[in-house]
């Protein structure tokens, strides 16, 4: 394997870490989708202030995920974002309305009233995870696009990446993509319950979240099994050393077999998620379930990214022209750029360390109604 290929693989690993952290942090969106269950203003305030101290991390991870994709695999940025226009625009709108809602909802003079902003949070809580799931699912199940780099020489029609006429709407209504998106949504809600149980010191919220955890995990687990079965039985696009691509039956299953270590990590992740959920449900005083479930989620998502892109697999198959499919080899930045960014990436552990430290400092005392009653710094 050449140095260039190693760098491409390394950056796919970074993308998988960022993607996995993003899915974990979608617990904020999951929590927002639960506002519908809380009518009492003081309980809503507890939930919102608990999530409100984390929403920026989710947001930043999404932005960094996009930026890192742009930098390391610009052809994906160009093809998927420019092609699946409506899909990405809906995702972006849902995050725009989230960004201001926390800050504005309880401020005097917010014009539209706090219920309006809570509704926006609810919309983002549902639309965000579902559509992000749909977008990631297209990377398994393919999308309607072609890539012709020589188009740049055509003065009249220079666009390199062409997408089908519905520009992402078709991806939303593909049942496999939607199944994936709904699964991500219920995962986000499950993680949110575990987070609230850990972060909020309130008996009523604790009891209601344990009930919601049972319901959401009860939906999530079968959905997750269904998604895994669909992925493992779906064809994927493989390529040879010359870059020639073809559809391969059971490609992702074969990838797990070829990369047995990824399968082991996947199973470890699944066990950790189930352990976090199960122990929280069975032991009334156990509140640490978010940590095994969160780490497990990160591990599972990382392995899904690995089978999506490693082992000579196209990570965005083209349903219109298989040779246009995007791979780590044909869509990445140059060796020089990947090297430069790899140097920068050495700082990532340092960034993660200060995030963890700040998280610990801010959360080691749990959120209570009493705290909210005695501070101005709240949402």
């Amino acid at each position: 394997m050449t140095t260039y290929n190693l760098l491409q693989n390394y950056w796919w690993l970074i993308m998988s870490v960022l993607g996995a952290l993003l899915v974990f942090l979608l617990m904020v969106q999951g929590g927002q989708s639960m506002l519908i269950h809380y009518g009492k203003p003081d309980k809503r305030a507890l939930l919102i202030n608990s999530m409100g101290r984390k929403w920026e991390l989710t947001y930043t991870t999404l932005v960094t995920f996009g930026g890192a994709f742009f930098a390391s695999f610009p052809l994906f940025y160009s093809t998927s974002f420019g092609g699946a226009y409506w899909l990405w625009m809906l995702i972006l709108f849902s995050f725009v309305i989230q960004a201001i809602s926390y800050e504005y909802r309880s401020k005097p003079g917010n014009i539209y009233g706090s219920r309006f902003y809570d509704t926006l949070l609810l919309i983002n809580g549902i639309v965000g995870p579902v559509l992000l799931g749909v977008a990631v699912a297209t990377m398994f199940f393919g999308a309607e696009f072609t890539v012709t780099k020589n188009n740049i020489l055509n003065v009249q029609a220079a666009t390199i990446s062409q997408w089908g006429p519905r520009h992402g709407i078709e991806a939303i209504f593909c049942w496999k993509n939607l199944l994936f998106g709904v699964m991500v949504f219920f995962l986000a809600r499950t993680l949110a319950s575990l987070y609230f149980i850990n972060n909020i010191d309130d008996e009523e919220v604790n009891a209601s979240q344990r009930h919601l955890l049972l319901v959401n995990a009860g939906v999530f687990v079968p959905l997750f099994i269904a998604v895994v079965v669909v992925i493992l039985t779906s064809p994927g696009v493989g390529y040879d050393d010359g870059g020639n691509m073809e559809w391969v039956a059971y490609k992702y299953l074969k990838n797990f077999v070829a990369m047995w270590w990824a399968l082991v990590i996947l199973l470890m992740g699944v066990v950790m998620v189930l352990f976090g959920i199960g122990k929280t449900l069975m032991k009334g005083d156990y509140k640490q379930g978010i940590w095994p479930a969160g780490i497990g989620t990160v591990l599972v998502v990382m392995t899904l990214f690995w089978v999506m892109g490693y082992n000579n697999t196209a990570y965005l198959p083209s349903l219109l022209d298989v040779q246009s499919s995007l791979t780590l080899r044909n869509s990445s930045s140059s060796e020089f750029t990947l090297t430069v960014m790899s140097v920068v990436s050495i700082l990532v552990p340092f960034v993660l360390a200060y995030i963890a430290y700040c998280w610990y400092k801010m959360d080691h005392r749990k959120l209570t109604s009493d705290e909210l009653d005695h501070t101005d710094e709240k949402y």
Partner: protein
Amino acid sequence: MEELINVVDWSRAQFALTAIYHWLFVPLTLGLGIIVAVMETIYLKTKSEKWLATTKFWMTIFGVNFAIGVATGIILEFEFGTNWSNYSWFVGDIFGAPLAVEGILAFFMESTFIAVMFFGWKKVSPKFHLAATWLTAIGASLSALWILVANAWMQYPTGCEFNPATMRNEMTSFAAVALSPMAMSKFFHTVLSAWTLGGVFVCGVCGWMMLKKRNLDHCWRSLKVGAWVGVIGIVLTMITGDTSAVTVAKYQPMKLAAMEGLYKGNHEQAIVAFGILNPSKQAFDDQDPYLFDISIPYGLSFLATHDFKAFVPGIEDIINGVSYDNEGNEINTVSYAERMERGKQLQEMLSQYSAAMNSGNTMLQDSLKNVINADFKHFGYAYLDKPEEAIPNVPLTFYTFHFMVTVGGYLLVFLLLALFFVYKPNILNKAKWAKWWHILAIITIPLTYLCSASGWIVAEVGRQPWTIQDLMPNKVAISDLSAGYVQTTFWIFAVVFTALLIADIGIICKQISKKSQTDLEIDNEKK
């Protein structure tokens, strides 16, 4: 073709709309961030609860403004992909890196420490809290650095080489990209202008509170920091503005010519201090470009080159490829007509390169690659239909530039006076005209916003029609979308952003009004 033009126009409109809204909030974040950090530093040093109250007052406004800046920022980043997909591939190898570094180094710093800054007063030590406040402000400036590096690269593409095998530009020197003269002058000019805006904002809000005779001690404390930051900001903005002008003259002479409405250049070129453009003026039509003008002799030559005698080319000179040295000797530059021709030849060669690559003819590839790279600076001209297409909107560039400079001069005087009153408060307190000073301070806030926006209009409109200077015009950079799609999202953005702006202004005004009606010191001590 008409559909293509529509898509280009709507894509530009959408990006401009998002950028303008984004820039309404970012400079206040950058400026107020520093001001709040300085205030908290004073609080920690003096242990005075009064300074704590003042810090918290401005921190609240900072938070409201920060949120909407974040909201509009995410759209900008993703629009590079959604609306400018060709661009994303053509230069993603270079442009993406600063964006990724921005995310990893700056955004996480901002987003992590802002939570500590707002909610950590009783959860972390005072020193840790102060560090968080400074890191939030520094993170915001770092974020500005990387996005401005990316923007500067579009104005002056450097540190890269075109790879005909991948049909894109690839980075060859990160240092050349990150430390280019364009990037440095743009970063300092932009961030320091944000300090100016932050300072003016504090002066304006305090002006309103003083007019209402509310929390006067708090106002004087705020003014002390605000005026200092503002004065430092405006002085350094002017110095870096001068550097920016020299950089633009060197790398984007067409933009400089448009800024001055200069069609035919001269040695010892005067600068227009005030002027009204002739609206019917077109390049090469021999009409006078101005209906009226007051000019300063030698001004433009000095501004552009720091040499009173230097030749400054006008729009027609640049198109004709004519320039002169100080002795009056003609310097051969390349005319736009020739650049278009050479651009088309390059496209031919690239087609041949692709054919050679498919047939495995590496010798031909190597020889073509050398020729392609030697002439690549003309690549974008192949897409132009006529040389005049490369002239930016002269009136818009001219008027916004002159507005920016005029208001900048006014801001220097205003902020110096504000600082003077901080140290001689009795003069203002006893003056009968104090009321008018406070009103002026309030009016100066929107004036500074317009000045700041004008700067960006000069920078971005002045470089049209290029998405990447000389390499990629807008019409080649866009995504394969229908005009109707982009038109729809444009209007959605317009409605959403306007609604958010109204809410933002409503909240900030209410916060100022509400807080100003309480005795801030006593209110703070209660907590």
